[in-house]
């Protein structure tokens, strides 16, 4: 089973680290391919990919890309999944930057594959070929589903740990395979940034917590509500 793990370059998010950890947990049945799109070919993402024992490391770079938006990233990562023959794609649920969580959805849309979010665990199905068993947190429950592959699973930024080194695989010098748009069969005209969908940036600072007395706190808590 080929598992594609998507990492932001140069610094992967906590959620992406969690995705990489889940991929490693799949064991020897999984051939992990780490991929990043845009950004530099080096950085912490590469270190983590190597430490995790990835069988291949891909980087999609092209002069036209610059800082690709979520739609472009989704398209590029979907093409990387096709290129690498991945049947399972693991991504972080949202980045530590913009944090909308749209890249996994755009990836799944372009790959024509289903998506499940808030994944807590994943394992290879022992009962059904070409399927995985994924545990998701939904409706206040931890639910185990068997889903057919190909599938995109996105992982929240909880229980994230830095992947340890795989002693069985000396991947510390694993080379990075650089891919261009044309190698992925993509035309430059398909890269259309959509900054309007992000909204306007407005400077703001997170306010400090306001000190309150017991009585003030009680009064705030007891404001009448519909419930």
């Amino acid at each position, binding site marked *: 089973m080929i598992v594609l793990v998507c990492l932001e370059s140069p610094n992967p998010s906590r959620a992406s680290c969690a995705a990489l950890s889940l991929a490693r947990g799949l064991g020897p049945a999984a051939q992990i391919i780490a991929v990043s799109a845009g950004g530099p070919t080096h950085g912490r993402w590469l270190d983590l990919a190597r430490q995790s024992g990835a069988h291949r490391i891909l980087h999609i770079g092209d002069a036209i890309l610059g800082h690709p938006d979520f739609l472009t990233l989704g398209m590029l990562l979907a093409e990387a999944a096709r290129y690498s023959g991945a049947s399972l794609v693991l991504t972080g649920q949202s980045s530590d930057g913009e944090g*909308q969580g749209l890249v996994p959805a*755009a990836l799944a849309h372009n790959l024509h594959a289903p998506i499940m*979010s808030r994944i807590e665990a994943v394992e290879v199905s022992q009962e059904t070929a070409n399927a995985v068993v994924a545990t998701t947190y939904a409706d206040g*429950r931890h639910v185990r*589903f068997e889903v057919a592959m190909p599938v995109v699973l996105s992982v929240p930024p909880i229980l994230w740990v830095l992947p340890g080194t795989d002693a069985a695989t000396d991947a510390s010098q694993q080379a990075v395979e650089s891919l261009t748009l044309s190698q992925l069969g993509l035309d430059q005209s398909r890269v259309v940034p959509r900054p309007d969908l992000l909204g306007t940036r407005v400077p703001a600072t997170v306010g400090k917590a306001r000190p309150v007395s017991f009585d003030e*706190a009680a009064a705030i808590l007891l404001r009448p509500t519909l419930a």
Partner: protein
Amino acid sequence: MASIVAYMDVREGAITLPSRFVVAEARRVADAAGATVYALLPLGPVPQAQIEELAAAVSAAGADRVLCSSDELLAGPALDITHGALLAQVAERLHPRLILFPAGGVGVELGPPLAIRIGAAYVPRAAIDIREEERTPDPPSQRVLLQRWRAAGDVQRVVDVEDIEHAVVATLAAGAPRTTYGESFSEIEMLPCPEPKYGRPRELASVQDPNADVALCSFMILSALPASPALQAKLPPGTVVTVIGSSLDAAAEAACPHQLMTLSDGSRPGPSAVQSPWLAPGAERLRLDSAAPDPEGEMAGLAEALERLAASSKKVPA
């Protein structure tokens, strides 16, 4: 603005509090900007009487019309695989300007795939601001703005619903609706449930999370200790006490409370970005300090204050 769709999250047979808040917010926008509020009620196979009961609650919260789909496929957790086609069907039919999801995790699962599918903007952990714009000599117009923090916490993003050519999908913070906006009567339209595009996932097992209420809270109290029984008994609906840990659990990660209060005697550090949930713009941050060295001191003090206030106002919290 022609229409607004508010997604209703139903758990254990009841509309969640964040869902009622979403309808109330949709009503507020509709009253200001002129729109019809549709509440979308996805349900498993349930009796007609229960559908009518739920629709009445949604209607009282502010919906003009209730769209309901009742099918075995929708009986399980809300997943894009099972619920996505229904949402796309509604979006295709109504072409709403706004599609709102409640806090609690359902927006994370359903919002981004829907936004990508229909080419909409997506605003997670959003707050809605309505601003009047002078247009003399014409009457003033109302601008509907959806605001969110970037995850990095450095700046906010603002989407003006009228400026953007596309629909806007948003997940709102969990506020507490403070009034009823409508009558408990509304027209119910039953919708067919489309077959999922990628087949049905097979549910193997399910375990209830004892902390599930945390994901739905509108008022989160962060404490070094679990809630004392005295405090727990006096907390109003939508309020939870969460223990400050080294990281968030699944329920806390899904939470987006409108108010966050830290109980602290000053000897402990406050919650860091990892320990506290993201908040929407406008969320209230409070800190309750106590001189008492005993960490249970704040809980006892808060419990006493709640009891005193409830008794004096004759309003006993539910």
